[in-house]
């Protein structure tokens, strides 16, 4: 059951009604929410819901243990329990996502060196959302250890924590929320708030527009080329590669918008995930706006500790920390050499920033008298977009071999024109114009609003919602419910 389906609509309407009927009873509201979250997750795989329960209980007990030893000022035992928590989290990720890849790679390498080694691939079903909820579980124990979160010992405390892990709007594909803001909100009753409901609903609709009208529409064109690249010209492959970042942005950004919107309708403000990621002048800024909840998680729990640990190495320590951090970001997406290279590729783009000393400096895009970005900055943004697009070619390729063949074809097969699918291209282009308009407006003209006649001005929300629904019905693709990031 995905967020943009009719089944979800019925499910969510039911949840909303009951949820707000028990708005005065905090515990009842949380118990109901937890039940709904588990029911939602068990629709994907009931056995994996069992794993989720076990992991939740284990980490809850670990959290209690860590806090207990922290109170007794037994840092050694608290650290030990934290380490156990991190090992369990990474172990679960490793077992389900990376074991086959790692063992296969070792066996291949051993064979290459002349040793005989074989590995029978295990048929493991990766629990959907694993990469998202294990990061939440680990951040819980780490934050307790760092004194950022105080575990609540009561039953409601456990239910709040279980809700944090299994919260149905975000469990499948994020955003990866932090424990403190979520638990603080879960600890008070969420009262019916029409304004929050309306804002949330608009975000859901915008997410649906991004997903169904842009991502799924572009997918028709891009897949037609990418899945048959050996029959397409370099110009078509190049064009599809340049469109892919937009597809991914609309797909994952769309999902994030829907998740944030649904959460908001339930009274929760969860972490933002995207902030107009292509309006940037360097790769560091790009990662501060793309999949922000993952980047900030890895920055806090991987990059900063590493950077502190290796600070004696000076700039080399920072480079080492960032390369490792970016490699983790790459590998987080899956067990594949393409993801590893994707991470390293992005890490390499940080080196010039660090060498030039502009790594942590905020580079602002200067605007002209009309408020638009100056020309030289536009060129730089386009340049960064090309760099991102090339990196995403690695991300998009199933194997290094495929990536290599595609690059080879892009340099040799310049004969043959651009593959055109006029209907798909025009539909997507119209919707992309809307996306670019909204992003430009939010980035550079945040106070601007489309002028409406005076008497319609207080109907702005209603008009926007109606037009958005009509646009989704007119431009949307209704038979593709698969989100790219569900596989991660």
């Amino acid at each position, binding site marked *: 059951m995905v967020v943009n389906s009719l089944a979800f609509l019925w499910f969510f309407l039911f949840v909303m009604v009951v949820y707000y009927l028990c708005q005065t009873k905090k515990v009842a509201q949380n118990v109901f929410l937890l039940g709904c979250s588990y029911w939602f997750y068990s629709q994907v795989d009931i056995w994996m819901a069992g794993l989720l329960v076990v992991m939740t209980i284990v980490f809850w007990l670990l959290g209690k243990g860590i806090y207990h030893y922290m109170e007794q000022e037994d840092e050694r035992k608290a650290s030990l329990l934290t380490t156990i928590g991190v090992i369990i989290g990474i172990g679960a990720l490793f077992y389900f996502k990376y074991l086959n890849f790692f063992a296969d790679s070792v066996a291949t390498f051993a064979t290459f060196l002349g040793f005989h080694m074989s590995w029978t691939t295990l048929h493991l079903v990766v629990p959907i959302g694993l990469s998202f909820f294990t990061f939440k579980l680990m951040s819980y124990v780490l934050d307790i250890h760092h004194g950022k979160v105080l575990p609540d010992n009561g039953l409601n405390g456990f239910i709040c924590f279980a809700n944090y892990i299994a919260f149905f709007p975000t469990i499948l594909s994020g955003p990866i929320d932090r424990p403190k803001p979520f638990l603080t909100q879960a600890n008070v009753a969420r009262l*019916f708030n*029409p304004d929050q*409901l*309306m804002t949330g609903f608009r975000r859901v609709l915008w997410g649906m527009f991004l997903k169904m009208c842009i991502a799924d529409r572009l997918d028709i064109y891009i897949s037609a080329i990418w899945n048959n690249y050996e029959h397409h010209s370099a110009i078509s492959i190049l064009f599809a590669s340049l469109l892919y970042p937009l597809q991914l942005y609309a797909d994952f950004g769309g999902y994030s918008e829907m998740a944030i919107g649904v959460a908001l309708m339930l009274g929760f403000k969860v972490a933002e995930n995207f902030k107009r990621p292509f309006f940037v002048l360097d790769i560091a800024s790009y990662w501060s706006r793309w999949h922000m909840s993952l980047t900030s998680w890895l920055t806090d729990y991987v990059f900063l500790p590493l950077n502190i640990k290796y600070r004696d190495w000076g700039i080399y320590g920072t480079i080492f920390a960032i390369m490792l951090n970016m490699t983790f970001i790459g590998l987080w997406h899956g067990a594949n050499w393409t993801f590893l290279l994707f991470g390293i590729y992005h890490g390499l783009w940080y080196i010039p920033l660090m060498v030039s000393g502009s790594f942590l400096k905020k580079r602002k895009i200067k605007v002209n008298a009309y408020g638009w970005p100056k020309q030289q900055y536009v060129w730089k943004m386009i340049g960064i977009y090309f760099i991102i697009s090339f990196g995403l070619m690695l991300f998009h390729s199933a194997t290094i071999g495929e990536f290599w063949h595609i690059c080879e074809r892009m340099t040799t097969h310049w004969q043959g024109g651009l593959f055109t699918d*006029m*209907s798909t*291209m*025009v*539909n997507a282009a*119209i919707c992309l114009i809307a996306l670019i308009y909204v992003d430009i407006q939010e980035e550079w003209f945040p106070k601007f609003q489309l002028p409406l006649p005076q008497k319609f001005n207080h*109907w702005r*929300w*209603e*008009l926007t*919602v*109606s*037009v958005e*629904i*009509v646009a989704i*019905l*007119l*431009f*949307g*693709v*209704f038979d593709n419910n698969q989100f790219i990031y569900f596989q991660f």
Partner: protein
Amino acid sequence: MKKLLIHILITVGLFFVIDRATGLLLKHLYNQSNATSEYKIGYANAETTEDILLFGSSRCLHHIIPSVFEEAYGMTCFNAADWGIKNIYYHYGLLGNILSRYTPKVIIFEIHPCDYLDTPYSGRERAGSLAPFCGMSKECDEMLKKSGNYWPYKFSTVYRYTGSLPALLFGRWGSMDRRLKGWKPLDGQLDTTGLKAEEFPFPVHQEKLLLLEQFIQICQAKGIRLCLIVSPMYICTEQDVFKVPRNLANQYNISFFDYFHDPQFVGHAELFYDYGHLNRKGATIFSKKICNDLKDFLKPSFP
């Protein structure tokens, strides 16, 4: 709560107005379109007044020239077939829509295995092409219900045209020549390299078969002369693909004209555009041939 309800009511009202107004505009563009599908589907469902109607798949669309029949018999004729492997789900709904306006004298149905076999590439979803005509006839609505989208089409007029705005905007410059009365000629000659006969290893689809029977029964009840025909292929399978419609024709005592293995066409690359579609020259020869062969069948309908 009251405030929220007011917002919801205004939104529903506005949505209804915007949806219906946009739907009207799209309908206008649809009717003006000369793009193949929009013109063919639009005209066939809502505008035909011809004596003879040709039903079928893309093979019918490219193979049968209405003007040949008009010149030979002095009856008006329109080729209502469309491409995109339309099957009986579409044809049944189309028949309902036509009958809600008038009763043609003759229907020539160019039958395709997708009209009765359980193929993976042509199922209930083909009825979706009838979306702009939701509510026009009982049969049309029945088929839209089977396609699973009847209620969304009822709910939103815009949704009936989903994804087709570009085709509608540029439809005026579409490739259909309205003077050809629904026939779409193909120019070019078949490249025979590596061709193999198409096989149909699929079981009979009981629902499709039932609809095909009902199609025949409705035509007979309305006094429409109906015949089934099968067009030639460049290369044919040995399998008796058309046994089912032949038996059906016998059962209901309707004419069945089978040109699938016709030696005048089979193996003649110069008459084909691809292995399943005749080119302009092939279509002209084929149309004249069936026009002549159908003389006795058409005789009772002569003006």
